[in-house]
């Protein structure tokens, strides 16, 4: 088949529901609109924040399918997003208002793909209906004109369906879980943005944040199931939870594939990726290792870059069932073990459970990746020091658990530095730590961020607001911009924070470069020794 040579899909997200005027349909419609709002917010990197009223232009939407894949463009795998929006009726009979909404939405996404601010870099292909050669509807004529004039990529509906059917790729159906959980909508929107991000340093950080967030959500679902079964409760949301875990694992797998396979492929074609863009990024070290092996393989086999990439992707996607099985069996093992285990202690049950699950999945992922690449390169020497996506988060969780398992002091204030990998998962982890320390008493989470991590700060606040809008009233969140170019200001800012504390005990968890870490530590100098603890990661 000719098309196989030029296109390879990675995953398809599908959300759809039948159009009825009942309450469930209305709820689904609202859930979908809220998901689309998040999608636009993240695609524009917080540059656009449409209100629900604005997004009402898409009220006719009853579903969408997003296929993310790669096309062969002069031997380079270029990323594409194929977008199919489903209206009230079939495309040809959809209402005029829906068409306007769809059109504007697609233009907005195209705008983001061009913007210098947005991290996404992909071609956008829409799915149309080419059954009719002639149109009289002004909207259709406009669309056709734009398609032809600007060569805006569009694919015929039947061709799209054939692609989805014939190529083995990850099919992620999120219709049901999207309704259940507002946070999953955000995770989904952010993950799609991560998958569409270009090959740049921030793109790696976005993928890391998305993967960590997914991992946290999985850990939360499993923890809730474990706790419910311990108490002998059969939760009604349990099956949805399991379904959610299944779909979330698929998204995680897609992110792993995109990060390891696509980024290393891009590194081969554009060597500046390692030499200039990610030279400062520790997260790119495993990718640089992979790059060396891939480069040797291409030289040895004499295949084109695209051929090597597509065969690696095909092979990786074929392993997805074994990845899912492995993860599921390890989560089931954990559930069995936790049913018999009575953990507790000063860390708090919840925190330990999160840490165990995170460690388990991150560890298994690294082993899975090593095994896959050993087999693919037919080289037993292949080894990565840590996993780009989950390695840092797992290390962080493990170290916090180790340090605090014997700690009896009650910390009411937690100060942390937001690096580019700081995301909702890290914030939840720190909150759990605070909660286990204060036994859910009043507390403050203070985040120091730089101009580099402005989006991390906004994302975390967005996620926290969605998650804890009613739950945590006792915890306050504060954010302070700091500057690595002027460490003296960081010193002053942390001193100011300390001066605002009364008798509270402070825990500092510091990450990032020494120009940020050392002034923050030096600011503790005047604090009584029994009122602080600093953990440098």
């Amino acid at each position, binding site marked *: 088949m000719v098309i196989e040579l030029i296109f390879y899909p990675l995953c398809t997200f599908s959300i759809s529901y039948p159009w009825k005027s009942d309450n469930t349909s209305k709820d689904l419609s609202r859930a979908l609109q809220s998901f689309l709002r998040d999608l636009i917010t993240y695609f524009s990197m917080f540059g656009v924040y449409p209100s629900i009223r604005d997004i009402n232009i898409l009220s006719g939407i009853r579903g969408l399918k997003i296929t993310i894949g790669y096309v062969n463009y002069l031997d380079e795998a270029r990323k594409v997003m194929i977008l199919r929006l489903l209206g009230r009726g079939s495309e040809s009979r959809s209402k005029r208002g829906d068409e306007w909404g769809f059109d504007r939405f697609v233009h907005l996404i195209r705008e983001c793909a061009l913007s210098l601010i947005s991290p996404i870099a992909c071609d956008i292909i829409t799915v149309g209906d080419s059954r009719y050669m002639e149109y009289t509807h002004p909207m259709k004529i406009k669309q056709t004109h734009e398609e032809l004039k600007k060569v805006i990529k569009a694919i015929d509906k039947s061709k799209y369906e054939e692609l989805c059917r014939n190529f083995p790729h990850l099919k992620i159906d999120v219709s049901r879980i999207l309704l259940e959980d507002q946070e999953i909508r955000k995770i989904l929107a952010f993950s799609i943005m991560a998958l569409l991000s270009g090959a740049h340093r921030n793109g790696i950080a976005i993928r890391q944040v998305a993967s960590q967030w997914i991992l946290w959500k999985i850990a939360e679902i499993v923890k809730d199931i474990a706790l419910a079964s311990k108490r002998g409760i059969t939760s009604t949301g349990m099956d949805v939870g399991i379904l959610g875990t299944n779909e979330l694992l698929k998204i995680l797998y897609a992110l792993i594939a995109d990060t390891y396979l696509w980024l290393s492929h891009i590194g081969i074609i554009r060597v500046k990726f390692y030499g200039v863009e990610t030279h400062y990024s520790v997260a790119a070290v495993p990718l640089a290792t992979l790059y060396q092996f891939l480069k040797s393989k291409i030289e040895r086999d004499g295949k084109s870059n695209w051929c090597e990439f597509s065969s690696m992707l095909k092979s990786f996607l074929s392993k997805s069932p074994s990845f899912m099985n492995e993860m599921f069996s390890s989560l089931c093992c954990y559930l069995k073990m936790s049913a018999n285990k009575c953990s507790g202690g000063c860390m708090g049950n919840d925190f330990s459970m999160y840490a165990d699950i995170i460690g388990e999945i991150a560890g298994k992922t690294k082993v899975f990746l090593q095994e896959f690449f050993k087999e693919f390169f037919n080289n037993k020497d292949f080894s990565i020091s840590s996993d780009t996506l989950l390695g840092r988060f797992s290390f962080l969780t493990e170290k916090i658990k180790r340090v605090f398992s014997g700690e009896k002091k009650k910390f009411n204030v937690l100060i942390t530095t937001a690096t580019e990998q700081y995301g909702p998962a890290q914030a939840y982890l720190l909150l759990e730590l605070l909660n286990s320390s204060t036994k859910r008493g009043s507390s403050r989470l203070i985040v120091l961020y730089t101009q580099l991590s402005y*989006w991390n700060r906004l994302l975390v*606040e967005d996620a926290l607001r969605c998650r804890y809008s009613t739950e945590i009233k006792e915890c306050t969140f504060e954010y302070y911009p700091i500057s690595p170019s002027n460490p003296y200001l960081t010193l002053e800012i942390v001193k100011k924070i300390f001066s605002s504390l009364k008798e509270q005990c402070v825990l500092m968890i510091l990450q990032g470069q020494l120009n940020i870490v050392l002034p923050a530590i030096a600011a503790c100098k005047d604090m009584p020794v029994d009122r602080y603890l600093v953990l440098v990661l």
Partner: protein
Amino acid sequence: MNDEDLVIRIIHAMPSVNIFYPDATFSYTEAIREYDALLLLKVVRKARGRTESEYYPILIEFAGKLHEASKLMVDRLLNNPQVVICGSQELCSQMREMLSFHHFILSDLGFLEKKLDDFAKKFIEVYKHVAEHLNLFWFSLISLSVNNFRKILGDFARLSNGNLYLDYLSELGRLYKSVLDREENIELVLEDLSRIVEKIEANQKSTSELTRKIDRFLQKVKKSKQKRLTIMIYPQSIFIPKNIKDTSDTSILRLKNMIKILKMLIDAIKNTDGIEYVDALIMSNRRIENLCNILAKELCGLIDTKTAYIDENEDPLVNTLKGLITTDGDINLLVVVLQDYKKDLFGKSLRKIVEDLNNKGKGANLALIIIPEAVFTTSRGEQTKRIIVVSGNFLTGISARYSDKLDIKSMMELMYPHVLWLDTDDLYFITKAKIVW
């Protein structure tokens, strides 16, 4: 509109507005776009006895040449901010023919340009200290939706603490927040803001605290028996393969920059009165072994250089530091971190050294500096009108400007506030047990 009066007033101005990629902060990258000024306009409308005010931020581009009109193309990819192009009458009329009618072009605003040039001189000191905060502020103004911009402004407003630069940022945040929320205190905030700028201007010499610390350190070196200063170098963690041939490789270029700044530092120490002997100790580890070997080779021609190997799995520095610890007399140690180091190894090795010195009963005189690879700082304004620029290559450019007989104190003052100087007390504190590395 006979019965209406419209008055437009500039209530706040900021010269040289750079838009940097926030995600390429430490990559020594150029700005995406520089606007000559950001003006906050107050539009007062008097109608039927009522006065209403609105506020608008606009960006100014003082065009000197016709080709500058093409900068507007970049704006299209930057959220399309409102830009007013100003220039001479002739240039403006030429531009008018080139651009579409809706573009805002104003001629004969030379007085504004002159005023902003004077203003820029006032702002140099402010910009030098808060360059990165201002980058964040401008980027947020242009690229974030209002609700998110408001959040960043709220963070700025929280910074006030009596430090003039932080107070400036705080008032700036308050000003724009008040404008967004249409508060009535805008005039008061403006007064506070200009008062702070004046104070900063009057207080140009802001390095006094640093100077005191360096003087104290140098006094102790002078008083010590051998007048010897040991530089303990933590190089930036760059992996350099043993058989590397390509000398244009980024890692090699960065290593060259490290060597350059270290040589400058050694020269500055040698030029400092009272220091008679300088030696170096390079802190190596598994990942940067080759880099440290090259570094040692380069430095040994200048000063006595040793290399200490820190192993993650073994008790570090037990043997390698013998040379340092057994020295007779007092220890004067300047710890130099180049950009960053593996934090656990850094913390543990530093702790070990301080403990060892304590155990030996030696009255150690310690200082630590971190020299960042790239910072946002102010330009001299000779080649460019841009106030904020990126300075890379471990600030070698800043020191090189004044290469004649720089001593360590003047070198540090030149690099202020980008190079952090911590003294003996700070270092003793950093190596305490309450900090887990």
